[in-house]
């Protein structure tokens, strides 16, 4: 019989106070009075009762001039125009798709706000409407950009660029949206041999770096050729590294993922998920990021 590794639970370690610069932040819990001064504007995560500004979520109080808001540690995704998101089609409706994007309401992708196969812009005909399910059907993953946000918080998406469109083979990791760092670009071809899309909504797509780009029209022809083992290993390792970074609450961006990937190289891919290995490689990543900042 093969030997089996036995693992016993260990007590959780308290976070060292030395690594806690959160001390100077004003932390609140629901029901806490933030201020009794009426000169402030009420922002997210707060409400007014009897002229007192009260927190409604647990988190850190932030102030921008006269606006006071509480930033919760984790929430659902709040769409902002220009964000890159990864989502999953949940429904095909008249002239639109419904997309699950970890938002509080499903997002919409209008037929008119996507590039149809064939490339160039043309009027959407009735045939296009009937063939919607041929382009995207329930369960398909897409990458898109936020076009507008409705008053109820729902988001309208567009895929009017060859960067966006249907996703083919790869791995999806779902994390809290607050852990994805906002950057100029959210599409990265990592030097380790795979690419990632860091969706602002916390959906992260890891896929093999495509050899030739922008040949296929909007990415509707899915490449179903088998991915070589070496690529799959890189993808699995990246996936486990991202999971490790998320468990240790480190912000996700290209450098942190790459450093974590490099720190994980001495370990087997499956071992990265062990708590002590996670802690070790994330600590190393943290250290390198601090060195980078100088």
């Amino acid at each position, binding site marked *: 019989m093969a030997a089996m590794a036995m693992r016993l639970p260990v007590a959780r370690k*308290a*976070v060292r106070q030395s*690594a*806690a*610069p*959160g001390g100077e*932040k004003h*932390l609140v*819990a*629901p*029901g806490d009075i933030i201020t009794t001064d009426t000169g402030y504007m009420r922002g997210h*995560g707060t*409400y007014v*009762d009897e002229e007192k500004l*009260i927190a*409604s*979520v*647990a*988190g*850190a109080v932030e102030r921008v001039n006269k606006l006071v808001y509480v930033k*919760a*540690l*984790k*929430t*659902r995704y709040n769409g902002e125009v220009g964000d890159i998101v990864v989502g999953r089609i*949940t429904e095909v409706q008249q002239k639109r798709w*419904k997309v*699950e994007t970890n938002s*509080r*309401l*499903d997002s919409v992708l209008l037929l008119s706000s996507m590039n149809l196969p064939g490339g160039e812009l043309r009027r959407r005909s009735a045939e296009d409407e009937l063939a919607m399910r041929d382009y995207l059907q329930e369960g398909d993953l897409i990458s898109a950009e936020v076009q507008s946000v409705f008053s*109820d*918080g729902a988001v309208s998406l567009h895929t009017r660029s060859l960067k966006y469109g249907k996703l083919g083979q790869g791995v999806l990791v*779902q994390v809290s949206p607050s852990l994805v760092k906002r950057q100029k670009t959210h599409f990265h071809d990592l030097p380790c041999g795979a690419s990632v899309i860091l969706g602002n909504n916390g959906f992260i797509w890891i896929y093999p770096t495509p050899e030739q780009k922008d040949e296929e029209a909007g990415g509707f022809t899915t490449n179903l050729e088998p991915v070589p083992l070496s690529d799959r290993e890189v993808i699995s390792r990246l996936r486990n590294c991202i999971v490790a970074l*998320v*468990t*240790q*609450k*480190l*912000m996700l961006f290209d450098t942190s993922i790459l450093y974590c990937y490099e720190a994980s190289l001495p370990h087997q891919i499956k071992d990265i998920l062990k708590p002590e290995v996670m802690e070790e490689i994330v600590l190393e990543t*943290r250290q390198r*990021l*601090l060195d980078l900042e100088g």
Partner: protein
Amino acid sequence: MAALELLSDEGYRADGRRAAELRKVRARMGVFAQADGSAYIEQGNTKALAVVYGPHEMRGSRSKALHDRALVNCQYSMATFSTSERKRRPHGDRKSSEMTLHLKQTFEAAILTQLYPRSQIDIYVQILQADGGNYCACVNAATLAVIDAGIPMRDYVCASSAGFVEDTPLADLSYIEEASGGPQVALALLPTSEQIALLEMNSRLHEDHLEEVIEAASKACKAVHAVLDQVVRDHVQEVTALLGD
């Protein structure tokens, strides 16, 4: 010996507590990664697990969606192994659907649902070990889970039960005290504003005593609030410290 002595002459209860003393409360937030919010609580030997999903798009029948606020959907269940007698509990038996309704009422009062029109918030709680005060443990666990999910609430909701034995109000009843058949009050309170989210009473209690029993329960709620608040603050502190750099 006749009946079980619930309060000794020296003023101790069957498990050695004083009349107004609570059982030890231990809690943890963020126990699952997949859910939007989750929490685990132990109140003495009563153990409960709560998970929150949402606010998200309406699932199932879309006609139930409310155009001006979010729908709070609760589900209460007891693990087969939670009681001394192993028992399969199918969903929708009378006791658990009543508990579900109570939880829904409690959290509709606390969550700022008007911020999320046409959405749905799911709260699932399960009792892992039942030793009295199941409703209270569920409310307390669900509060932590809702806070963990970052859903805006007016205030914490803290719940505690109280009984009345030999002219003394007892706080935080255990299973044997509940099973003795005396009067029993369950109270869910928004502690800072002292608003009552839910009040439920079983069996008979003289009107003159009602006030002091409720007083004992609300005192217990505030004590629970102090513990939960500490748990939340520690959690927030820990996570911001990790995120800080």
